[in-house]
């Protein structure tokens, strides 16, 4: 048997290596009171998740995603005093981010994008994760939102329904169609040279 220390080489992204975090309630209380250092602490802790959600919800438009995260933080700090801790702070922040992202998507000019063709076109440039993101970004807004929240961020259909203002049946059917669109697009994609035997 090897010692735990040798077996377990968790990196800092797992939050395991020499990391000590002050109690969240303490940081929240200070942020409510306007302490910039406390805000920066919360920002650095939660913004990567918020930005990941935002970027995918707005179809990889980086400028929109930055606006979404900034707006989400402003609303979060304004409303932080009403945060009751019934959910994790991260969950609460992601909820605000999703609502801001939906507003950003609605403000955009409607595109003529259909569901399948842009996905297939994107998938032809398949390059593992990077292009899987492109495939997701090419999905119609409704499909993409459900797919991102369910398959990447692990939200349930009930949670998605509440976040997006749709019913659970719609969430389920859109997820099914989104997955089918992605699968078809990927199946239609010739293997890149790197992938060939």
């Amino acid at each position: 048997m090897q010692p735990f220390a040798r077996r377990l080489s968790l990196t800092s992204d797992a939050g395991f290596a020499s990391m000590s975090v002050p109690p969240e309630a303490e940081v929240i209380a200070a942020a409510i009171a306007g302490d910039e250092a406390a805000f920066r602490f919360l920002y650095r802790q939660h913004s990567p998740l918020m930005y990941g959600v935002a970027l995918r919800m707005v179809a990889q438009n980086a400028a929109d995603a930055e606006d979404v995260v900034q707006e989400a933080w402003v609303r979060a700090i304004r409303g932080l005093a009403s945060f009751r801790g019934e959910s994790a702070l991260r969950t609460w922040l992601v909820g605000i981010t999703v609502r801001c992202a939906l507003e950003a998507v609605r403000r955009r000019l409607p595109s003529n994008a259909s569901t399948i063709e842009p996905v297939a076109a994107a998938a032809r440039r398949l390059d593992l994760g990077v292009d899987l993101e492109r495939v997701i970004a090419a999905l119609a807004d409704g499909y993409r939102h459900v797919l991102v929240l369910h398959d990447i961020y692990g939200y349930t259909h009930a949670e998605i329904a509440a976040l997006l203002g749709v019913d659970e049946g719609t969430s389920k059917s859109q997820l099914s169609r989104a997955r089918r669109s992605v699968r078809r697009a990927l199946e239609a994609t010739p293997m890149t040279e790197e992938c060939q035997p």
Partner: protein
Amino acid sequence: MSLDQLPREIAPPSTLEERTVARLRDERLVQADAHLWSAHRRPSVWWQAIAAGVIFAAGAALGAAWNASREVAPLQPRFLLLLHGATTDSAGDEQDAVAAYRRWAIGLRDDGRFVAGERLAPEATVVPSGPAPEDAVEGYFIVSAADLTDATTIARSMPHVERGGRVVVRRIDTPQ
């Protein structure tokens, strides 16, 4: 690569933090010189509450901070999970174990329940001198949980248990 392998977190551009802070300053939602909190300077929310309470009683303007802090949900109890030996059968097992611990720790962090965790080096000294206990602690986690039952549920979900290790769960005794 499948969807569930995509990273959930993506680092935003470094300039976004300053732009966000600038907007919050413009809207008077944060102040650079508030100094109400600084990481690692205040070890306990209770000390902060006491200090803020004194300020409030003195009629200082910072009393508002105390009123605001009372809106926050009470701090959950914290528990220490002490990890004792687990077995590893092969190199492949070891890789699986590392991945499993990583997933577990990230999940816990995403739930807002992870407080701290460190692994311990195998070297140890014993005071007063004598043999070290055979079943030494190999690492620990500190998690927030509603109560001992909740913390025990967290401990049961650890890959450490699945791999034959044991986890001792102790509540951290903080003033009530």
